[in-house]
């Protein structure tokens, strides 16, 4: 009898301990990933960009622009007027519903199912390789391989921004995030460029250490000059580089590296802020989410390809969460939100993360 009582007590203690341990793991969002590839209608598996427009999902791929609507894919190609088959970036004009697509051969606008295109030959666009596009008010802001530019939809005027009229040193502009107050450009090799919409003044943020991967002082400034992506949300600047990520609140920088955060890789293709505290990081080693304290990484295992979800708490404890699905590939290129769901562009397909917890 005593033996049975001991066994029960021991079991209860073990269960309590396990529950305590489990309770210590931060509750991070869990998703069931449904993946789209050419096998189920995606025009190409290499997805550079993804854009959510209500119930419609746009996927910029290496071979056309896919529109997923009501369970079916419609594909826009150069035959439909798309500037180029490779669609690198997407932006939605929320007021009009027009979608802007930055491609390897110009900037296309999809409006009411029809496409018109701006190139460096037929318009004031600075360069046909359009890495980034963002719409704010009556202006379309564009990041190209030869500088930044702005198209006024009111007047048709193109304004070009480059080393001649901004603090930009390099002109290889990778990403743009435009808001009513500020416009930020990620300039590859030239840090972050800031445009103040009110004053028309430019400012620049660079890595205080220069183009070096050595960080002399943590949180001294932008983590690296080679910026790849920028996202400005709730007056917070989120910046991605190939050597880590940064958050800037206007006064202080906070940098994220694999060694002191939950980032799975310092090689970050894209970043998207949810709000002032939360952001998503699209890396070459999976999709990472940061809730202001804790991290979660979603990816197929780099070795076994089995789905993984790793959670890292504030103390650096990492816990593997059992999952049965993962994004289509670990090489993540873009993300957008659909309510609580996420849509993820990867090198091997488009993934729909359906929120479960």
């Amino acid at each position, binding site marked *: 009898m005593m033996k049975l009582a001991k066994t029960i007590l021991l079991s209860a203690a073990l269960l309590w301990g396990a529950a305590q341990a489990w309770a210590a793991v931060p509750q991070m969002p869990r998703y069931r990933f449904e993946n789209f590839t050419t096998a189920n209608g995606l025009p190409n598996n290499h997805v550079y960009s993804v854009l959510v427009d209500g119930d419609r999902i746009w996927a910029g791929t290496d071979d056309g622009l896919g529109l997923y609507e009501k369970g079916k894919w419609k594909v826009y190609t150069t035959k439909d007027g798309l500037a180029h088959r490779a669609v690198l970036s997407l932006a939605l004009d929320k007021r009009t519903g027009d979608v802007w697509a930055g491609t390897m051969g110009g900037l296309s606008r999809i*409006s009411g199912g029809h496409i018109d295109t701006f190139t460096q030959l*037929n318009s004031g666009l600075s360069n046909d390789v359009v890495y980034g596009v963002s719409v704010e008010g*009556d202006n379309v802001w564009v990041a190209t391989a*030869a500088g930044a530019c702005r198209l006024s939809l009111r*007047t048709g005027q193109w*304004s070009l921004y480059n080393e001649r009229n901004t603090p930009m040193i390099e002109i290889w502009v990778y990403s743009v995030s435009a808001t009513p107050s500020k416009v930020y450009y990620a300039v590859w090799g030239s840090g972050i460029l800031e445009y103040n919409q009110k004053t028309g003044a430019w400012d620049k943020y660079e890595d205080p250490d220069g183009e070096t991967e050595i960080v002399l002082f943590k949180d001294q400034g932008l983590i690296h000059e080679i910026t790849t992506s920028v996202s400005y949300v709730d007056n917070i600047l989120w910046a991605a580089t190939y050597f880590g990520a940064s958050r800037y609140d206007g006064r202080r920088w906070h940098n994220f590296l694999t060694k002191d955060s939950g980032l799975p890789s310092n090689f970050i293709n894209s970043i998207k802020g949810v709000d002032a505290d939360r952001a998503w990081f699209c890396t070459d080693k999976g999709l990472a989410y940061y809730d202001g304290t804790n991290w979660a990484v979603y990816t197929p295992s780099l070795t076994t390809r089995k789905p993984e979800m790793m959670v890292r708490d504030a103390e650096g404890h990492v816990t593997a969460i059992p999952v049965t699905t993962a994004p289509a590939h670990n090489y993540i290129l873009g993300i957008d939100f659909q309510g609580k769901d996420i849509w993820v562009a990867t090198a091997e397909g488009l993934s729909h993360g359906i929120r479960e917890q």
Partner: protein
Amino acid sequence: MSGQRQWMLRAAVAGALAAASVVFFTMAVLPARTAHADRRDTRYDRLDYASPLEMEFSPDGERLYVLCEGTDEIRVLDGNTYAPIKSIAVGHLPRGMGLSASGDRLYVTNTWDDTLTVIDTGALRVAATWHVGMEPSGVVEGRTGKYVFVANRISNDIAVLDAQTGHEVKRLLAGRGSSYLTLSPDGSRIYATHVYPNTFEGPAGMANRTPPESEITVIDAARAVVVERMQLHSIAGVFHLAISADGRLGSAAAYHPKNMVPLAHLEHGGAFADTLMLFGADVGKPVEIPLDELERYASQPFGVAIAPDKAQIFVTCGGSEAVLAIDVRRLMHFLRTHARPASGSFEQDLAASGNYVTARIAVGHNPRGVAVSSDGRRVLVANRLEDTISVIDPRTDRVAATIKLAGPKIVSVLRHGEQTFYDARYSFQGQIACATCHIDSTFDGLTWDLEPDGFGRDIVDNRLIEDLKGTEPYKWNGGNPDLPTECGPRTELYFWRSQQYDDLTLADLVTYIRSLPARPNRWRLPGGELTPAQERGKEIFERTVDKFGKPIAEANRCSFCHSGPKGTDQQRFDVGTKAATDNSGLLDTPQLTNIALTAPYLHDGTATSLEEIWTIYNPHDQHGRTNDLTKDELNDLIEYLRTR
């Protein structure tokens, strides 16, 4: 008889027959239609003609609102007796109007002021004036009263305004020359048309030999977003559009140019097809039906109205001075019993309209807007260049009454010239007029293969005709020294295929064309000063040395050839744009007046944008020294050119 003598004899006989037919035609047809010329006055000044363009009944039918383009006013008439009630001054050159959902407000677009006048229809006074986009034209208010939609012709978009404050919420991309708007009967959709073809989207060099494309833009009225662009192939001008009361049949007046073939077949109906684009549940896929028939063309279709019972469609034909009545039942029968061409267009069938056009009702000069009374018993047509309203009884398809609007009784020189400009009767079988290609006295955005240069030779872009004085010679090759030559024998011989201008008519026509002013330039700041980009562009335009410090030869400076107030030195130059189809590279230097509006560019319309003139078609700096410029400098130059 030698072959040559046989040919000469045949030519002589043919010439005699042609001359006889001209005499016969002149005697048989013209006398009744030239009566207005007898009233011609010798005054050259601009008189205050009302020039009614559009009309609309109040919801209760008690009032008729008449938009008078010439006097910048809305005239309010009794809806039954047509007695004048009041005139309300609006902005300059009003073009479109629309009643609010409740009828308590009348919106009027003012094309030269870029404003929208809001009239309180209870008090019959102006309640507000709101600023809108460039050259506002059509206007409708959504059924919920939340938004007002305004089609802006120059900015090619549709402004969405807060109906209470006039604050512009957003702009929707529309077709080029965005102009006319129609709300569907259930209020769910707005249909928008545009008068110039959309910009060519395709390989460089093909712009001028590709059929034009237009669209009907479909807007979700509640969300104010574009949900569809109904593509109209080979169409280059779409005007008013009407939807049947049951919402199942849409109908839009359209120009179908035949500019891909030489303009040498007017006698075979080879210049334009005047058509209706039909769409909606009744017809399935959009289908184009011709209004023309041999010897009875329907030049410049403009206004469209569908009777409340959907029994008839009425179409005003501004150049033919007639209203066509179409029997809808017969039209549907025609569509059901005739195999639809793969193109979706019956435009080539000049016998088709005989199946459904049941009446051709002669009205006044340049009939435009059409309004149908709510009981369907009266069809009113605004005769713009006669200051009258024709009241048609649709039961008899006859003009029951003609209402004269107050105004000058005489026909001035300018008025007669304008009538001549819009009147198609001078061309063979009344097919086309000056205004067919110069829509609303502007241009058509098309390139044409004109006959005198040889078939397939010298493809030319149609040019704007505003503020022409001091820009002669004319034609792209500078071959016509003055407007009488340009508009008279050349036009008669090669375009009209018919010689019918008397000296005074030609003189009046030329006087009218010379009187056309340049529209306000929308890229210039109100005070005339230049923006920093425009200022930089002006410096490039006027520079004499290139960026490497080398002097630019005079003929290679922008400001040398494009000199003077109009931007032309009136000389001919070879700017290196001679195409394989051109007979010569020597071209008249075109004026720069309102150049921002007039795409495509270059003499043959190969450049779809100002940028392409230099990014594609100036590889050797013959069209000005530009290849030393950076992209942003070229953008600056273009910003300056837009101010001209």
